């Protein structure tokens, strides 16, 4: 059992949830997403973000819009589809349950020890 593997596994599960929650607040540019996550000290590499976005887009959770930029060619801005919205609410629910449950458990453990 490898600690890094476990960590990345844990992170991986919530990654999509986090990204969807950022996009849900409004159209987002990938590098903005990275910045925002970094601000929340959830580090993600841009290189891993792009495939994730593409996968979500292909699963029709996301869609994108070309936005003209003042420097250079237009940029891709991602936004949530209704399907993504539904997916997000379900994830959110699961997250609430999970975090509550995990918190309850870990806190209990703390008291015990």
């Amino acid at each position, binding site marked *: 059992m490898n600690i890094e593997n476990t960590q990345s596994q844990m992170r*991986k599960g919530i990654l999509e949830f986090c990204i969807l929650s950022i996009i849900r607040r409004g159209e987002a540019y990938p590098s903005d997403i990275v910045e925002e996550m970094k601000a929340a000290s959830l580090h993600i*590499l841009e290189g891993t973000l792009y*495939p994730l976005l593409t996968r979500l887009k292909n699963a029709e959770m996301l869609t994108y819009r070309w936005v003209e930029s003042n420097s250079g060619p237009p940029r891709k801005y991602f936004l949530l589809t209704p399907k993504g919205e539904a997916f997000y609410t379900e994830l959110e629910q699961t997250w609430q349950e999970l975090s509550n449950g995990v918190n309850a458990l870990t806190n209990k453990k703390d008291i015990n020890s």
Partner: protein
Amino acid sequence: MKKIININLSGRVIPIEDAAYENLKQYIESLRRYFAGEEGRDEIINDIESRIAELMNDKVRKGSAAITEADIQEITASMGSVRDFEEADAAERITSEKTTTDAGAGTGAGASAGAQTYTQPRFKGRLYRNEGDKLLGGVCSGLAAYMNVDPSVVRLLFAIITFGGFGMGVLIYIILWIVLPASPLTTYTGKRLFRNPEDRIIGGVAGGLGAYFNKPAWNIRLIFAAPLILNIIFGIFDGPHDVFPNLFFGSFTGTFILTYIILWIVLPEARSPFEKMEMRGEKVDVNSIKNNVQEGMTDFKTRMQAWSEEVKTSAQNLTNRANDFTQTHARPFASDVKATAAPLGRGIGHAIGVIFRVFFLFVAGCIALMLFAIMIALIFGGVAWGPVNNFLWSSPFQQAMAWGTVIFFFAVPVVGFITWLVRRIVSTRSKSKYLGWTFSGLWTIGWICAISLTASIARDIRKFERTATDVAISQPITNGMLVKVVEPRIRYTGGMWGFDDDNGGWDVNEDTLRYNNVKLRMTKSEDSAYHVTIYKYSAGNTVNDAMDRAGKTQFTAYTLDSILNIGSGLRIDRTSKFRGQKVLVEVKVPVGKKIKFDESLVDTFEPWVVRYEETGSDRRWNRRYRVDWDWDESFSWTPGVDYVMTSEGTLITTDKVINNPEGVYEKRSNTDSLRRQIEQQEKDLQEDRERLRDLEERRRDSIRSTTLIKPKKPKKETQVQMYTAFVPLII
């Protein structure tokens, strides 16, 4: 000093340092490989590219003159390297319980290994057939994956074992094919053999080999060039003559040049940075093998236990497997076979297919080897070989065309075939169409050479003429004439290319060609004296040329008392060349006079050469003579027997001849036999008359029915006869 280039990345023009550009290209290439299995690969790459472009653009706008290597490093760090992705993905892979792959295994070439590991995890510690990369059954590829070496090398070694060990390799291969289970394995990720475009003099073969073996390319070049250099040096010492053939085709030179050419064609060029990385490889193969062996030794015990366990289970399974064979194994096997051989169906069919394919490759290999040998023989000996050089080619043009024919017409298909075979063995896919075009082009040149050569030779033998010389003879007084040969039969004296011929009948050295194409003809003399005429025949460019060549042919005949002594063969010097020269000795025997043939005639001349028949003339082709090549009825006279000339111009014998199996001729004077012979002759004559009458009648019929029958043109026939006349002499 740094070179700066402008690139267009996702619609932005960015100045970038050359080295930085290489790094960037490499990085994007690694991503491309990494995402090879991904559905939206191109989109992901495009997005990443445009983001990189954006980042670089920012740098430029902030005042950098150009993107440097450090910038690229920064950008790739923020985007994440393939290795980072791999770690992120490792978790996923574990959950999908594919294998317990260690991400670092066999990462000879860093990023590329990542890509490979991503798609196909490497199985360690067990020997499989590799389904992912196979030619026949994936045995070699599986072995290569097991040892973590370049599959091409294993395949080449296997081929060598097969050729060197009389097919042992085939047997081993088939056994392994049947025994080993199949599994998709990761292909070798370490060093690979490429041609090196960065370090090339001719094709980059030596450069690539150097990179592969970690040796300076110049050493390898030296090995390739050594025979050539030595040949040139020896050629200079040897004198200026014949430098050309020695230069290119002396001893090892040809082999080395051929090896080089084949490797040139077979090995792919390392174009992309990835291939260049693969070519240099960070790990040396031998080390990786060593590591593998060491690893294997440390857990040898556990492995042995596991193995015995496996043996036990497989022993148990074996019976089941045998029963299930048709259902479980047969299908993948059948699909194996389907890939290249005809779909042979299930059950026993696949086994036949397997054998067929192995057999096919084996036979193809044998053919290639044979062709190769023939080609070497042709190149080494063929055209420049003294006899041919001195006696056949009448002009430098002809010789050049002959070279062209040998090299392009014969050698090119052989090289092409070998190349095809080797490519098949090392499973290189043809990357360029030029290869085929090159071969076709060269072969076309070969065809042109062959046709020009044929045309040129045909021109040289357009006319066939003869000269006649009467031999002054002394008339035999008693017992008639005895024809004999005193000169010994021509034997090959050696000294040319170590050729050995026990049969004799011909001899050749630097400036003389001798052979025994001598024929005898007996005709009726018009007067009461014997006459001997020597006809010398030769082909030539023009009538005069043919006559000239015929006249230059040396042949002697003289009489001594009643003995006609003829030479054992004709002699041609190198200036008059070989043009199918031959000699006919005509002896005119007066009616009622005797003639006898000595045993030495049969010993000296080829039996089939002696008989000669004149069949008329064809003015159009100026070929007045035609040779009767009747192999069964060779020498139509029995030696040591007295013949008498009849008034019809035929020779009859007064002796009864019994040809016994030991070849000893027994003769007995017998008037009965003579009478019987006369009766037989009369009977034959009667039959001939009847046949004549019959023909006459038919002719009249045909005239009556006004059917025009075109007279047959003997043209073609004579031509064919002409050429067949050459064949035995040339061969």
